[in-house]
C-alpha cells in the first residue's frame, strides 16, 4: 500500500461524463462475469482417464445426472466427451456391441462437481474413475420492468461484511467501502476493482452483532465513518490515514439536516433526533428512515423496532397499520420524477428478499416499480448523500459473499 495516493473529492468534478464512465466500466465488468460454464478441462481429464483404462476401441456410454448441472450442459458434456474420446481412438457406440461400457454419473459435493465413471469390461469388477471441478455460483437475478424500474449496478463483492459504500466519482472511479474491521479504498482499472488502500478500524470494544455503519464523503477531508459507539475521521492528504475514537455523536440521516443517535451496543436508533423534525425531537425506536420533501415540510418515514411504519411531519405522528415493510428504508429522488420515492425491502421467501419503490402521494404508500429480487438477505440500505440513488448490501445466498449494489431508478421503461 506504500505510495498509494488518493485524490480528495472535488464536487466540481461530478460531471455526467464521469458517471457514464463509471456505469460503462461496471457494465463491462459484470457482463464479463456471466460467461457459460467451461467443461473443457474436466472433460479432457476424464477422457484421458477413460482412454488409459480401456485403450482404443468401441465403448458404450450412459450418462446419469445427480447434480445441479442443467440438462443443456449435460448434453454439452456428452458431446464434448464423445468428441474428445474419438481423438484418442475411443469410439462411442451401442452398448451391446462395445468392448466396455461406461456408466458416467455427474454428481457433486459441497465444493465440487464430481464425475464418476464406472467402467465395466467383461465379467470383472467395475473400475471407478473420478474427476472433479469446482462448482460455479450464480449471479443476482434482475427483473425486467415497466414504469419505474430499480436498476441495480453491482459495486463490490467480498467475504467480509460491508456496512456501507461511498462512491467517489473521480477518474479513475473509486469507491470507499466501510467494513466491520476496515475501510478500503478501491479503484476500478483493467476491468476490475482493486484495493488501493486499507485503513484498519480500531475499536476498544467489540462491535455488536448485525453491526451497522455509515460512510459520508466530506469537503474538508475525504470521509467520516460512523459505527456503533465509534466515529472515524480520515485525513485529506496523502498518505491517507484514519483515526477512530469512541463517540456517541448522532449519525446523519441525510446529507445536511436531520441526525439521530445510534445505540452503541445494538443495531438500531433509540429515537432521539437532532435538531428534530419541526416540533418533534424524537421518533419511536427505529432501524431506518427516509425523507420525502413536500412544499413546506418533509415527511419522515421510519421503520420502527415494533415492525410498524411511522410517519412524522413535524407536528403529527401516524402509524401505517396496513403496511408490512422490512427494517430497511431509503429515499431516492430520481432525476426523472418530481417527487422522492421510498425504497423498502420485504422478505419473499427466506433467505431471498426483494426491494420495491413506493411513492407517497398522500400519506399512503403506493408501489411504483416491480419488485427487484435480491438473492439473499439485505443487510444495509442507505440513500446516497445526493439521494439520487441508494446503496444496498446483501449476503448472497449462493456464494456467501457480501455484495453491494448501487440502486438507481429509471422512468418510462
Amino acid at each position, binding site marked *: 500500500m506504500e505510495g498509494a495516493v488518493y485524490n480528495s473529492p472535488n464536487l466540481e468534478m461530478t460531471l455526467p461524463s464521469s458517471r457514464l464512465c463509471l456505469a460503462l466500466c461496471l457494465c463491462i465488468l459484470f457482463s464479463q462475469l456471466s460467461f457459460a460454464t467451461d467443461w473443457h478441462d474436466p472433460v479432457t481429464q476424464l477422457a484421458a482417464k477413460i482412454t488409459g483404462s480401456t485403450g482404443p476401441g468401441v465403448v458404450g456410454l450412459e450418462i446419469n445426472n*445427480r447434480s445441479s448441472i442443467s440438462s443443456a450442459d449435460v448434453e454439452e458434456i456428452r458431446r464434448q466427451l464423445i468428441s474428445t474420446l474419438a481423438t484418442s481412438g475411443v469410439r462411442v457406440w451401442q452398448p451391446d456391441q462395445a468392448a466396455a461400457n461406461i456408466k458416467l*454419473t455427474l*454428481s*457433486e*459435493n*459441497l*465444493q*465440487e*462437481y*464430481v464425475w*464418476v465413471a*464406472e467402467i465395466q469390461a467383461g465379467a470383472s469388477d467395475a473400475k*471407478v*474413475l*473420478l*474427476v*472433479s471441478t469446482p462448482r460455479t455460483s450464480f449471479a443476482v437475478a434482475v427483473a425486467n420492468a415497466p414504469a419505474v424500474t430499480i436498476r441495480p449496478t453491482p459495486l463490490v463483492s467480498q467475504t467480509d461484511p460491508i456496512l456501507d459504500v461511498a462512491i467517489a466519482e473521480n477518474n479513475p472511479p473509486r469507491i470507499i467501502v466501510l467494513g466491520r474491521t476496515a475501510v478500503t479504498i478501491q479503484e476500478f482499472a483493467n476491468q476490475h476493482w482493486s484495493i488501493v488502500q486499507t485503513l484498519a478500524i480500531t475499536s476498544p*470494544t*467489540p*462491535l*455488536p*452483532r*448485525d*453491526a451497522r455503519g455509515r460512510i459520508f464523503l466530506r469537503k474538508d477531508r475525504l470521509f467520516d465513518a460512523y459505527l456503533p459507539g465509534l466515529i472515524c475521521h480520515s485525513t485529506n492528504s496523502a498518505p491517507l490515514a484514519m483515526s477512530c475514537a469512541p463517540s456517541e455523536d448522532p449519525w446523519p440521516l441525510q446529507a445536511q439536516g436531520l441526525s439521530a443517535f445510534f445505540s452503541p*451496543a*445494538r*443495531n*438500531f436508533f433509540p429515537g432521539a433526533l437532532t435538531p428534530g423534525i419541526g416540533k418533534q425531537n424524537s421518533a419511536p425506536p427505529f*432501524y431506518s428512515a427516509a425523507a420525502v420533501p413536500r412544499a413546506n415540510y418533509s415527511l419522515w418515514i421510519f421503520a420502527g*423496532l415494533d*415492525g410498524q411504519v411511522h410517519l412524522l411531519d413535524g407536528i403529527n405522528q401516524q402509524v401505517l397499520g396496513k403496511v*408490512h*415493510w*422490512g*427494517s*430497511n428504508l431509503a429515499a431516492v429522488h430520481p432525476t426523472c420524477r418530481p417527487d422522492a420515492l421510498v425504497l423498502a*425491502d*420485504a*422478505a*419473499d*421467501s*427466506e433467505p431471498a*428478499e426483494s426491494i420495491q419503490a413506493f411513492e407517497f402521494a398522500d400519506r399512503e404508500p403506493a408501489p411504483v416499480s416491480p419488485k427487484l429480487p435480491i438473492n439473499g*438477505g*439485505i443487510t444495509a440500505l442507505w440513500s446516497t448523500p445526493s439521494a439520487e440513488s441508494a446503496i444496498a448490501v446483501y449476503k448472497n445466498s449462493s456464494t*456467501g459473499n457480501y455484495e453491494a449494489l448501487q440502486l438507481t431508478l429509471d422512468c418510462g421503461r
Partner: protein
Amino acid sequence: MKRFNSLLIAAASLAWATSMTAATRPHYGGTLRVGVQTSAQTFDPTVSGTPGLRSLTQLVFETLVKLDDRGRPQPWLAASWQVEPGNQRWHFQMRNGVVFSDGIPVDASVAAASLRAANPDWKVFALGELVMIETSAPVPNLAAELSQPRNSISRRNQGALIGTGPFTVTQWDTTKQHLTLQANDEYWGGRPFTDSIEADLGKNDRDQLMLMDLGKSDLVEVAPEDIRRAQIGNRLLKASQPAELLALFFTREARSDDEIHLRNALALSIDSAALNTVVFQAAGEPTGALLPNWLSGYGFVYPAGSVATRPRAPHPVVWTLSCDSADPAARIAADRILLNAKDAGITLQIVNSDNADIRLIKMALPSADSETALDELARAFQLPAPTFADSSVSSLYSAETALLQTRRVIPIVYLRTAVAFRSNVRGLKLLPDGSWQLDNVWLSAETP
C-alpha cells in the same frame, strides 16, 4: 423417498408461508428455550456427540478454525495460517482481542496448551503470537481438523471449563439435565441477540414437542423417525442433509477371508431401503458408504444392501448383536436386520451386552470436511488411519474404499437430523454436519 420429499416440500411450504412477513432486522433480548434428546454428564466439547449437544457446546467453546457452509476452513480464533512445504509444520496467527469469558486474554501459549492436551501426538508450542504445530507425518487437512470440537481452546478456572464463545455457562445441573447459558457481552464477534438460552437435555422429542405446543419450549431436536409427525400445528421444521450414520460395527477385526465373505454376505443381506422407509419413515438415504454422498460426491458407487442383491452366506454362522436399548427405533431396526440376516443364512442373537460381536450404532457425521470426517470416522470405528495421496476426490475415494474393505463397519442408512421450532425463532441455520447455528438466533413477536 418420494414420501419424504413430499414431506420436505410441505415443510418448505410451511416455512415459506410463515415467512411471508416483511424482512426485519434482528431484535435483541429474550430467552431461547431448547430441548435436546441426548443427556450428558459433562458440558465438555471433547465429549460432545450428537448434533444437538454439539450445537450447545460450540456456543461456549471455540476453535482456531471453523468450517463454512461448504466445509471450507475459515479463520476463527486464528486470524490466518500458513503451512510449510511438506504439510508437517503449521503456523497459526492468533486473532487479537479475544478473551475468555472470565476476562483472561487468549494468547498463543494458552491455545497451544489446549491443543497439546487434545493431541498428544502433535508437537504444539507458542512462538510470539503464533501457535506452531508440527506433526510426525504430513497432515494436509490439519486446518480442517482444528475445527473439531475436541480442539476447542479452553482453560480451567477453579475446576470449571471456560471458553471464548458468545455464551457462558451460568448453570449446569446434571441431575435435572438443565443448562443455562448467558450472552457474553464482551464476545469478540459481537454479543448474541438473545440474552440467554435454557436447555433441557435427555428428554425424548415427543415430550419436548408437547412442551413446545404448551408454549414452554421454542426449539426441539426431532428424531429422524418422528420428522413426519412433528410437522403439525404451528410448528416449523428444518431438516439437515443426511448426517447421522446408522451402521453395524464389528467389535473385532476380521481374522480370515472367510470371515470377510460372511460379513459381505451380512452387508448385502440388509434391506436398507425398507429399513429406511419403514423404521425411519424415509428420513434418510440407504448407503454403503462411510461418507454421505452430498459430502463425497461418489457415495452411490458403494452398493447398499437390498433384496435384489441378497446372497447366501458360504456357511452358517452365529453372531451376537447389541443396540442402544434407550433408542426404540434402533431396537426395531435391529429386529429387521436379524430377519434379513436369517434369510441369508446368518443367525444374529440380540443381546444386552457390550461384549457383543456386532453393535448397531448411530454416529453423527463428525465434520463437513470430507477428509476430516473420514479420519474421525476411522478413529471412532477403530479402523486404520486413512492415508490421502493428495487432496483430490480420487484420493478420498481410494482411502474410503480401503477402510470399507476391512469390513469392520457395515454402513446401512444415513439419517437426517431435524429441529422443530416456533415461528418466533428467527435466524436459525442448520449446518451441513447437522448441528444448529444458534448464536445468530433472535426472537420476534410470534406470528399468529
